[in-house]
């Protein structure tokens, strides 16, 4: 095994181009587990810890450009206003030790369906900034996850940053596990209200081969909110609409039975989380509308 230690981003891209099988390591919270357990013996480890810009974020404009290695702790501490859903999700990641090292770039690189950041990214709207010596491309988050632990990156590409749309309304994140800390999601759900475009976006974690949006549920809810004039009136959403939304979210799942839970349980729990997160965010939206009036 070779340990590649680029001192800068250009050098890292060159190393990845030269050694496409090199495994990038940042926080190490996924990669080191695989090495410790002998599940993986890469020919090259590509250490990204020494590249300062990966640890930085920019908040100008309508999105946050979040460096791939910004640890979850920093997201919780610094980006709660711009990225409330991701900040909530970050807080559910493992433990302080893991949140100090792990970041969204690694979550995307691993592309586990159970990664905690994914539902929040899907709900907020995001693009993955993938770069290689050939150039930079922006991959829409909906197209990034291509299979179980597979993503749309090319072998010579590294994740430079994630561009996440700044919140224009309330966001929520919910996760089911056996305790609060050190839990891999049995399933998870993210929801973001976008009053600017009068749309609602969702993200489902750990209940399908990849993180997914509940597309049909979003379409149903967007139409129902529009037809009922809910965005303007700020009324509570009709219970039957909430119920139907929850059913459609559960139907968007394609889960499996595994050690953490059954497929049936996951479908049920996603429905419950969809109902709750919609209720919570809508209450926040109503409170904010009242406050603003």
């Amino acid at each position, binding site marked *: *095994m*070779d*340990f590649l*230690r680029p001192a800068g981003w250009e050098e890292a891209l060159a190393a990845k181009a030269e050694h496409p099988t090199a495994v990038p*390591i940042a*926080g*190490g*919270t996924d*990669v*080191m*587990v695989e*090495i*410790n*357990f002998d599940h993986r*013996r890469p020919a090259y*480890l590509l*250490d990204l*810890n020494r590249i300062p810009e990966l640890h930085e974020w920019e908040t100008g404009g309508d999105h946050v450009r979040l460096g791939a290695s910004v640890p979850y702790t920093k997201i919780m501490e610094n980006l709660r206003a711009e990225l409330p859903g991701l900040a909530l999700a970050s807080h559910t990641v*493992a*433990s*302080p*030790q*893991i949140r*100090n*090292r792990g970041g969204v770039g690694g979550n995307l690189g691993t592309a586990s369906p159970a990664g905690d950041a994914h539902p929040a990214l899907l709900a907020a709207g995001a693009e993955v900034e993938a770069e290689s010596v050939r150039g930079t491309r922006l991959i829409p988050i909906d197209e990034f996850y291509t299979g179980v632990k597979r993503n749309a990156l090319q072998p010579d590409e590294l994740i430079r940053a994630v561009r996440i749309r700044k919140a224009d309304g309330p966001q929520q994140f919910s996760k089911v596990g056996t305790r*609060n*800390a*050190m839990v891999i999601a049995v399933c998870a759900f993210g929801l973001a209200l976008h009053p600017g475009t009068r749309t609602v976006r969702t993200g489902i974690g750990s209940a399908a081969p990849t993180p997914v949006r509940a597309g049909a549920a979003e379409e149903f809810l967007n139409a129902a909110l529009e037809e009922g004039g809910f965005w303007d009136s700020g009324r509570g959403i009709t219970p039957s609409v909430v119920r139907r939304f929850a059913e459609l979210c559960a139907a968007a799942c394609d889960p499996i039975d595994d050690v953490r839970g059954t497929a049936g349980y996951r479908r049920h729990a996603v429905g419950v989380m969809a109902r709750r997160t919609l209720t919570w965010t809508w209450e926040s939206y109503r409170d904010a509308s009242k406050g603003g009036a």
Partner: protein
Amino acid sequence: MRVNLTVNGRPQQADDVWEGESLLYVLRERLGLPGSKNACEQGECGSCTVRLDGVLVCSCLVAAGQAEGREVVTVEGLADHAGQRAGGTESRTGGTDPRTGEGTELSPIQQAFIDAGAVQCGFCTPGLLVAADEMLERNPDPTDEDIREALSGNLCRCTGYEKIMDAVRLAAARQSEGS
């Protein structure tokens, strides 16, 4: 490969390090610092917790090469680390054995663990001490909720958490009296 790093204030060099090796392995097996414990090797238990450039991390998930040039504090150096924070002007490392920490007055959190009876088998203790000390550094007046969250990445197999809570409360109280 060779790895140079500073551990508990002293420059250290480890040779013949395998590229996939963890910082934990380097500390225990190459530098003779067995205070940090090796248990789950997947970041679940916190027994290997150390400070890496001040940040609380699981040393089993840090690749040895990533520690090149960095500063590490292990439980062996905790008393000195806490002492310097409390404003100890002169280094107390003079009479201290860098491998065992012997010869140094215990840190407040270590003393509190003894006084509160927060040590049973002792395996989780080093990680808990490093994690609790880091919290007291950031948050000198923690609520019970703060303590629980700060220690949520450290598992005690004896399930002695109540005494551990007592110990951290005790250390916080003593720290605020002393200041």
